[in-house]
């Protein structure tokens, strides 16, 4: 195995890691505000990818602008879904909220995935490149699309960090995640933040979907594994911290790509790469059975 191959794998791992982090940050955000594990997050990511694709194909919009359109569309769409389906979570009359959140988001995933098969067809679609061509550094070749995906992903995460730390909305979001009651006392309308957080998480997932589309192409079931990977990252990455998620995303992206590179049987390497991430998740859950989201795990009951 050559050094160049290894370097290519490391670069690819970093890009995928950033994408994973974007998805995981959304899961964390939704969990910390709504207190549910969103089983439909991977499907929002899938929808984001398709949305960008159709905006490019039929709207003639350049790919990066299409990503922004997809984010906006998913932001609004997810807020509507939240209003329609998740409001019982905030009512005292609802019992067994864990079960409700679980079945509803799982059912939502089923609905979105099967609707996607009908609406978009079962066959993979590939939008045009952000910037066609490749970059060559020595013997290492990386496509421009991967560089764009990585770069825009990092920019979005930096923007998110700025938003959370420096803006009033971000601070309010943080306050709601720590204590719904205390936030209500200082005059924050927690209800509004449920919609906002769900939409915001979905928009980040949509960005991730739009960014990977030119690299891996789109398919209705593309969200299943990234959804599980998001949980891995949330555990690995400091339990609800955005910064931790980024590092964990990179770690997972790298270790998966290196796993593929070093796996003795290349025909199976790709399949078991996915299993590897899942296995990490299961082992972590065995040792931290309640610890997925650490301190932020406040139940609403």
């Amino acid at each position, binding site marked *: 195995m050559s050094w160049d191959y290894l370097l290519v794998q490391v670069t690819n791992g970093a890009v995928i890691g950033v994408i994973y982090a974007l998805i995981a940050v959304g899961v964390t955000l939704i969990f910390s505000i709504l207190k549910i594990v969103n089983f439909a997050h991977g499907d929002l990511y899938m929808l984001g990818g398709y949305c960008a694709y159709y905006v490019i194909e039929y709207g003639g919009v350049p790919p990066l602008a299409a990503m922004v359109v997809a984010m906006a569309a998913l932001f609004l769409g997810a807020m509507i879904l939240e209003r329609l389906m998740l409001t019982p979570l905030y009512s005292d009359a609802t019992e067994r909220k864990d079960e*409700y959140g679980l079945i509803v988001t799982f059912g939502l995933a089923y609905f979105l995935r099967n609707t996607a098969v009908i609406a978009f067809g079962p066959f993979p679609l590939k939008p045009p490149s952000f910037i066609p061509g490749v970059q060559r550094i020595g013997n290492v070749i990386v496509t421009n699309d991967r560089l764009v995906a990585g770069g825009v992903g990092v920019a979005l995460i930096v923007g998110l960090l700025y938003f959370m730390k420096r803006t009033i909305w971000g601070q309010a979001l943080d306050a709601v995640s720590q204590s719904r009651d205390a936030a209500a006392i200082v005059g924050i309308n927690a209800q509004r933040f449920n919609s906002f957080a769900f939409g915001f998480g979905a928009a980040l997932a949509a960005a991730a979907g739009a960014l990977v589309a030119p690299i891996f192409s789109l398919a209705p079931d593309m969200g299943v594994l990234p959804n599980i990977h998001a949980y891995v990252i949330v555990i690995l990455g400091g339990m609800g911290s955005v910064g931790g998620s980024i590092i964990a995303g990179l770690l997972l992206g790298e270790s998966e790509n290196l796993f593929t590179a070093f796996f003795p049987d290349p025909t199976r390497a790709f399949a078991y790469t996915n299993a590897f991430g899942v*296995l990490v998740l299961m082992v972590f859950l065995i040792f931290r*059975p309640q610890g*997925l989201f650490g301190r932020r795990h406040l139940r609403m009951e």
Partner: protein
Amino acid sequence: MRGLPIAIVLAAAALALANAGRLNPYWTHVAIIAMYYGILAASWSLLAGYVGLFSLSHMAFASIGGYTSALLIQWFRLPIPLGIVAGVVMCCALGGAIGWVCLRMSGPYLAIFTLGFSEIVRITISTEDEVTAGMAGLHTHSLLASATRLPYLYVAFALLALSLLLMGLLVRSRWGLFFRAIREDEQAAAASGVAVARCRIVAFAVASGFAGLAGGFYAHYIGIMTPSVGDLDEMAKLLVMTVIGGMERLPTAVGGAFVVEFLLEWLREYGQWRLPVFGIVLLLTMRFARNGLVTPFWLQFLRLGEARVSPLSAAPTVPDKESGT
């Protein structure tokens, strides 16, 4: 259950079986598949509805049961029923092990863990194609040397009846009481002396065993096993069936499986659209009728018996306030 409803159920079953020969092969097949899902829905409701263990690996166990049986028969030329039993034993053991490993997990964490397990099972089965034939599918021996499907219908019915009888006895025993106590409040159940760990492991083992039984039957009925038998879409379908029927009672779960499977076939001309529509029905059920759509009819049916048998001493029927939504 009072006398009259039991009599009605038995009479209806006898009548249905006596006239089963009139079904054309297609609807016979649908009935058999409905019973396959019936066993799975009942055993999943045992786990998720009674004990509150929201496992997403139930279909993975059906797949493990099917593959175990098919492979053992292929390797050792076991008689088919023995192969199916071996699949059941395998699922009981693995299910118990999963139950043990996730003793300290609850709610979404258990769901994520079992989702992961089911993905690993699926990936392994598709990838190790030298053993399992992977995506191409593993050909299995037929359970019966029959040219028609009718005998399979009787076998499927017998298996469903046996499963329901055994699980019914279990949930009516003190174990059923402990299961529900754990669902309601695990901590209080432990403080009341309930061996929570043992109950959770037993529930996982038993439910997985029945999933393995269903999977074993399916393998030797259909004649081919593919990794998709245990995939996430199948799990979602099972969840749709059980929740729409009513996940907290065995008969309503089976009812949900029957209704959904029947409708899926009946509405076949609408093609792909059926699936998202059932997704919407699931969401609406959760939103507005959390006890399931079959449950009210079932309760009405049971009351029918009470009124006839002892109109005076009938216990004050508890208003069905379980949904809370």
